[in-house]
């Protein structure tokens, strides 16, 4: 009788232990999920703040510096008309200011979220390539499908990723040529940005700048990933973004 009783209590304690472990696992999972959700919200807020800063910058460029350049161009025009034979330098100055205004407007547009959201990712990317190629200092080529199946907001985030990647290529890699390959299948959109600039040691974490972190964070926010490959020369960034399930989106 004593043994049976002891066995019964022991079984009871073991059952209690198992129930506790099950609850503990659930608790840890819930905590982990909450933490992930919090991190995601934090990331979204940070990127929204960045986007707002870019918007403000875009407005400043357009309304302030843009206006100053326009006034300068106007003054040059007025000066030209007052002169009987305008000299070559003045002509060159007018052309340079005109070019600066065009450049500035294009840049302002590429920074402005509201402007970019009017177009899809491919259209924005093509416009950006056109702007870069217009400088004649760099060359950018794009291979892309007609459209990509991502929601508008995600297309903008993807565009920011690509913008950040080629800014890195131009600024740090001193690249002369950048190739962008966009492709998609049923599940993912894949974007590869390759350049012929200076390479870097991908494993060296001290070489990872804010740009790379931003790319990673943005890709993570869309549930995707960003991977770098680099050697002594040339760098490739492969970004993979999952295409949301339409049923999940509705839910």
């Amino acid at each position, binding site marked *: 009788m004593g043994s049976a*009783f002891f066995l019964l*209590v*022991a079984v009871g304690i073991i059952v*209690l232990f198992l129930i*506790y472990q099950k*609850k*503990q696992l659930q*608790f840890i999972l819930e905590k982990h999920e909450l933490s992930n959700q919090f991190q995601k919200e934090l990331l979204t807020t940070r990127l929204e703040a960045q986007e707002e800063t870019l918007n403000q910058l875009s407005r400043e460029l357009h309304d302030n510096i843009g206006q100053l350049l326009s006034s300068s161009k106007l003054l040059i025009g007025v000066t030209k008309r007052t002169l009987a034979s305008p000299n070559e330098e003045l002509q060159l100055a007018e052309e340079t200011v005109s070019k600066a205004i065009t450049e500035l407007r294009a840049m302002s547009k590429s920074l402005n979220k509201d402007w970019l959201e009017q177009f899809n990712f491919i259209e924005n990317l093509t416009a950006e390539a056109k702007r870069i190629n217009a400088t004649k200092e760099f060359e950018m080529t794009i291979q892309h499908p007609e459209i990509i199946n991502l929601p508008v907001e995600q297309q903008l985030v993807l565009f920011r990723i690509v913008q950040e990647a080629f800014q890195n290529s131009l600024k740090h890699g001193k690249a002369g040529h950048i190739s962008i390959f966009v492709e998609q299948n049923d599940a993912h959109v894949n974007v590869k940005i390759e350049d012929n600039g200076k390479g870097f040691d991908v494993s060296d974490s001290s070489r990872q700048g804010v740009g790379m972190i931003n790319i990673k964070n943005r890709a993570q926010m869309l549930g995707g990933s960003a991977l770098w490959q680099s050697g002594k020369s040339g760098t490739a960034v492969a970004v993979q973004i999952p295409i949301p399930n339409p049923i999940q989106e509705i839910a």
Partner: protein
Amino acid sequence: MIATLLTAAILSWPANMSNIVIYDVLCLLTSVSLSLYFFYSLIMPWKKMVTLFLCLTQISHFVLSNVIFKTAPLFDSMGYVILSVCIVIMIFMYLHQILSNVTEESLSLNFDFWFVSSQLIYFLGSFIIFLTFNYLTRKILTTELYLEENRVLLTKLWGVHNVLLFLSSLLTLGSVIWIAFHKKLQSS
């Protein structure tokens, strides 16, 4: 603290004091000390109130049987039944608390859990033993027949009680060693 209190009580007891009284006082001391332990371990106010009520019930029983009514000089098995059932209720309240407040800490490293589990083994067993003991002694007193089989059964019950006490102490000691070993392993 509980162990110190009980040991001090036993050591300071006069040599000519009746065993029955010592048993009663030990029952009271066990009750008060364990009630205090659960009172501070339990979080919910209603559980604290229940603990307080159970403790007062046991104190009342002690006062009634030893001071006011001064019942027959026999081992107070009913007092131990009340003690056991009260402690078991407190234990279940504590286990309920553990299951309601899950943390990331492993339960196997929680000393309180092992201590309470060992108390459960002892007091749940004691409850059944003392209840049977009470039934048998009442039967003997009523019929005034103290048969050999009754004597054997009562002796066996005490034996089982001692085994339970030993097992519960072993579990407590084992948990102390296990937790200390685990902590040492973690720190190294």
